[in-house]
């Protein structure tokens, strides 16, 4: 659980644009919660690589999300504090969405692998 969460946080951190509000928030969470440092750093490097690969997807994804329900996003993104995140910019919204989604997917994959698949393989081998 700790390894999966640390790696996912690292990926999200690496995918987020450096120095933005959300980047600092995730960094704060990484520091406050007892994360697995090695997994976090591995995830961070993976995230940076993913960022280079997925770069071209940020703008169209963000635009698609924002245009899907303009009224909702206008109302939500103009709320206090949220307005500082600049999520009304297509590229930032897309970047954040892909970063969080990638983090969640990687977390789920590692969690399933470590807690469901690997124990089953161990049981099979032991039998």
């Amino acid at each position, binding site marked *: 659980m700790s390894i999966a969460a640390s790696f996912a946080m690292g990926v999200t951190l690496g995918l987020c*644009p450096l120095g*933005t509000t959300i980047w600092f928030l995730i960094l704060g969470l990484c520091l406050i919660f007892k994360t697995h440092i090695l997994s976090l750093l591995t995830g961070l490097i993976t995230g940076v690589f993913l960022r280079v690969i997925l770069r071209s997807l940020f703008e169209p994804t963000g635009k698609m999300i924002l245009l899907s329900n*303009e009224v909702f996003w*206008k109302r939500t993104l*103009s709320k206090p504090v949220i*307005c*500082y995140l600049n999520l*009304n910019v297509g*590229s930032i919204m897309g970047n954040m969405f892909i970063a969080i989604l990638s983090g969640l997917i990687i977390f789920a994959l590692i969690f399933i692998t470590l807690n469901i698949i690997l124990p089953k393989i161990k049981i099979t081998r032991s039998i």
Partner: protein
Amino acid sequence: MKLIRWPVVSLILFALLIGFFITDYLSNSKIRNDFEYYSSEALNTIVKVGTLNLKIFRSSLRLENILVIDPVNKSRFAFRAKSIVLRADVSKFFERRMFLQEAKIHDSYIKLTQTKKGKFTFLSERAYNMAEYEPTVIKINRILTWTADHLNPVKIVSPIKKRIIENQNITNKNSSFKINTLRNNSTTQLVFRGYKLKLPRDYPDFLVKTLSIANCNIDLYPYAIKSPIKLRNIHGKIFELSSRPKKHPKPVTLLANGFVGDKSNGWFNVSARIDAYAGRTNIIIDFAVSNIFLPEFLSLVNPYTPYAKILDIESGQLTARGRFQIRKGKIVPSSVYCRLDNFTAQAVGELVGQEWLNSLSISNTFLEAVIPINNKKPYFHFETAFEKENFRTTIHNFQLKFKPSDLGDDLLDGVL
């Protein structure tokens, strides 16, 4: 609870606490220097601040001995104030807005210069012409943005770095938008490209609830005249002053009074109420002036009418009162009462443009006029107004010298 690194949490809270209090101590050195530097850069002139006192806990900023030098004439200053006190509403910073509950300006001194076209500027005309490609509003906006940025508690924990914003993905070059910033020393604009959802701004970004001015002195420099018209000891208050009056439901209200001239008994009193909310245009301006020494003001009127140059006014004291009112975009008919005491003036007929008139002289008389203000198209030149409007006058002790050869039969019709 085992999940949390408590020493890290303590360290972060401690750092925030230290940052919170240390700002007060650093305000007069670091923040003052920054303020001077960025203000000077934004206004393209030298701005000096004697003392800066920032209190985050009270959310107040106090500036003392402020001096803004004219960019062209370094020996001349455009603005000077003994103290400016600003008290902000911190909660509004979280909404990316700047609300000043109170702004007080004490013992200020402003020099206003009239341009050839009759506009008034804080800077000298040369400096004004140089800066015409960058309106003052943009400069003020940049200073306010910088101030809001540096007073913003959110920014203390999450500073957005310039290079990060520049690194944003560039895919659509057709649509782009710009954000002004003063963080970068070399370039002052960051450019975002791509799609941006326009957020609703149904409120003003900048609002001053109460702006108090105490003991303000203004020197008005008429065009091409070196001796100023002095407005002294001005006191006033402006309420609900906002950057977007159309989005703010409360009207802007203004009250001001002061004296004209250094030693004269002349005074003025103005009150105004401007309501522009939701496309409304309701304006009420009440004014009264008394004992204004007319020859001083004549040079100020020169850019607006040629009559001022024709009339050689030696003396005269103007007293006037009236109301100018616009309701739902239309002028409400009213009148302005004017009276001139001890009026002595001369004009040569040829200059007036009447061939039959040799000269006109009025000596030591009083003149009364009730000038109508109606919903006809407003006149920007007095002579047009004189020609098209019938205004009532009473003149005593006047002398007309005319050329009999050029007289028509109907010369004195309507006069006698």
